[in-house]
């Protein structure tokens, strides 16, 4: 068995993992390794061939492969040790990572710190419970993206997409360009799940119908998908009688959201957030196990890779701070929020530095104030939507104004 001793193990080589790794290297943590399950570095971005990445971070519009290539080139240039085709199996409470690689066998990597950048997994048909038959031809959007863009296969000839998340919308366009007939996108909510720009450039550009307030009720087919049934729903998401409709298709694609992937740490018992499904972290993205840091989609589902990179770099700074200065369990203030807010990350703040908070609202709202009572801060939003993550930057000086142990975010209507 291979045994190694390092200062840092990064698990995952997507944008979060590579950005964290490069930043940590620049800060002097040169004795580190990156572990990647796939055969290639980059996580999901090599398959995201569409443009729209990097507008904030690089100030130019890049495709996914171009965006991640810059990080891969950097990793190769400075010579960070990477293990591809290698699956991390276990992290012990002492920071020992057990991983396995087909050629090298089992590896035991003793590390002073670990950054989790394991990304997300797609929700499937079973998460949204669509009954009916179990024929071939049912996919998730990210899988279809991989099949087309990496493997070069089309999933079928006539497709219906369930859920209007960004990946689903982007695949509606991609499938259409490749000659697949996309017969519609079914969204149960009265508003789309993905960004407005994707509704325009992926659906409207190609006259693909978007069925808002519609639920898929059945998938039918003997061996291959033959048709799906949909129905209109009211504001309480109850089906409306007499609005049932059948759509013939051979492919059903689910784009119904992502779940942070944290199976690897389920055994070591760190505190988790039931709203984000990621670990509870402080503003250095340190989990409740001091050696363990979390960033990217395994922490919380982001909608912009630019934010992922930014938060991964902060996690790297956190590791550096923890290892060099021996960050003790600093005094932390708890972040809380009112009912209209779904989550706020980080969940704790040390007040040792400036902080960027990331939050999402539960429902679309208009004319609202986002406020923090303790520091007398507020910001007005004409419109605020669940599909667009809100970022709030606060200076350390402002955070130091907090007297108690709490910092409370509230979303309230303008009165």
């Amino acid at each position, binding site marked *: 068995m291979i045994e190694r001793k390092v200062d840092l193990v990064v698990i995952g080589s997507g944008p979060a993992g590579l950005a964290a790794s490069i930043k940590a290297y620049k800060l002097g943590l040169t004795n580190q390794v990156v572990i990647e399950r796939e055969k290639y570095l980059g996580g999901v971005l090599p398959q995201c*061939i569409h443009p729209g990445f990097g507008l904030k971070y690089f100030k130019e519009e890049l*495709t996914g*492969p171009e965006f991640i290539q810059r990080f891969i080139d950097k990793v190769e240039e400075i010579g960070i040790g990477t293990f591809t085709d290698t699956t991390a199996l276990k992290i012990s409470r002492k920071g020992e990572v057990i991983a396995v690689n087909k050629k090298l066998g089992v590896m035991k990597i003793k590390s002073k710190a670990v950054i989790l950048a394991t990304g997300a997994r797609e929700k499937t048909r079973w998460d949204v419970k669509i009954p009916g038959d179990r024929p071939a031809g049912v996919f998730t959007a990210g899988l279809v993206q991989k099949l087309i863009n990496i493997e070069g296969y089309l999933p079928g000839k006539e497709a219906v997409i369930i859920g209007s998340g960004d990946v689903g919308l982007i695949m509606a366009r991609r499938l259409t*360009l*490749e000659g697949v007939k996309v017969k519609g996108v079914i969204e149960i909510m009265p508003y789309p799940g993905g*960004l407005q*720009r994707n509704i325009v450039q992926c659906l409207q*550009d190609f006259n693909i119908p978007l069925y808002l307030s519609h639920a898929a009720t059945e998938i039918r087919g003997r061996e291959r998908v033959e048709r799906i049934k949909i129905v209109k729903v009211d504001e309480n998401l109850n089906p409306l009688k007499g609005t049932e409709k059948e759509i013939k298709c051979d492919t059903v694609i689910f784009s119904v959201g992502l779940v942070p992937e944290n199976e690897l740490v389920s055994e070591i018992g760190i505190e988790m957030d039931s709203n984000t499904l990621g670990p509870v972290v402080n503003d250095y993205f340190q989990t409740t196990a001091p050696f363990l840091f979390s960033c990217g989609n395994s922490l919380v589902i982001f909608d912009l890779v630019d934010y992922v990179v930014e938060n991964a770099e902060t996690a790297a700074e956190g590791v550096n701070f923890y290892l060099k200065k021996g960050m003790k369990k600093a005094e932390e203030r708890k972040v809380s929020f009112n009912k209209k807010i779904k989550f706020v990350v980080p969940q704790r703040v040390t007040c040792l530095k400036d902080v960027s908070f990331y939050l999402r609202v539960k429902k679309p709202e208009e004319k609202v104030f986002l406020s923090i009572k303790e520091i007398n801060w507020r910001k007005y939003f004409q419109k605020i939507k669940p599909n667009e993550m809100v970022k709030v930057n606060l200076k350390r000086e402002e955070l130091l104004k907090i007297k108690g142990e709490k910092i409370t975010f509230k979303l309230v209507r303008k009165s």
Partner: protein
Amino acid sequence: MKKKIICIVCPVGCEVVITVEKGEVSVKGNKCEKGLKFAKTEALNPVRILTTTVPVKNGEIKFLPIKTSKPLPRKVLMEAMKKLAYVEVEAPVKTGQVIIKDFLVENVKVVASRRVKRV
């Protein structure tokens, strides 16, 4: 003509109102210069960046992601896809390498979105 569109330059997605009168285009609701430029083009001749893949021979991967260096008129996207169906490249490929010069429109290039090592 008055038209309400969503600006797709960036993920903010501003609602922009375009008015065309006697060939003059006026734009309201944009929050940046890029949005103004986009809205004007969108009113008269919408354009889009096209991204797709082409097979790559002897490479570390089987398909090379490509993009157009500039946006193409929206109406030629399907024609562009048909043309690209006959294109194949040979590894090695560098990021940004020009695959086709003057693709459908003068000065629009098809370029590689990533590097592909030869194996």
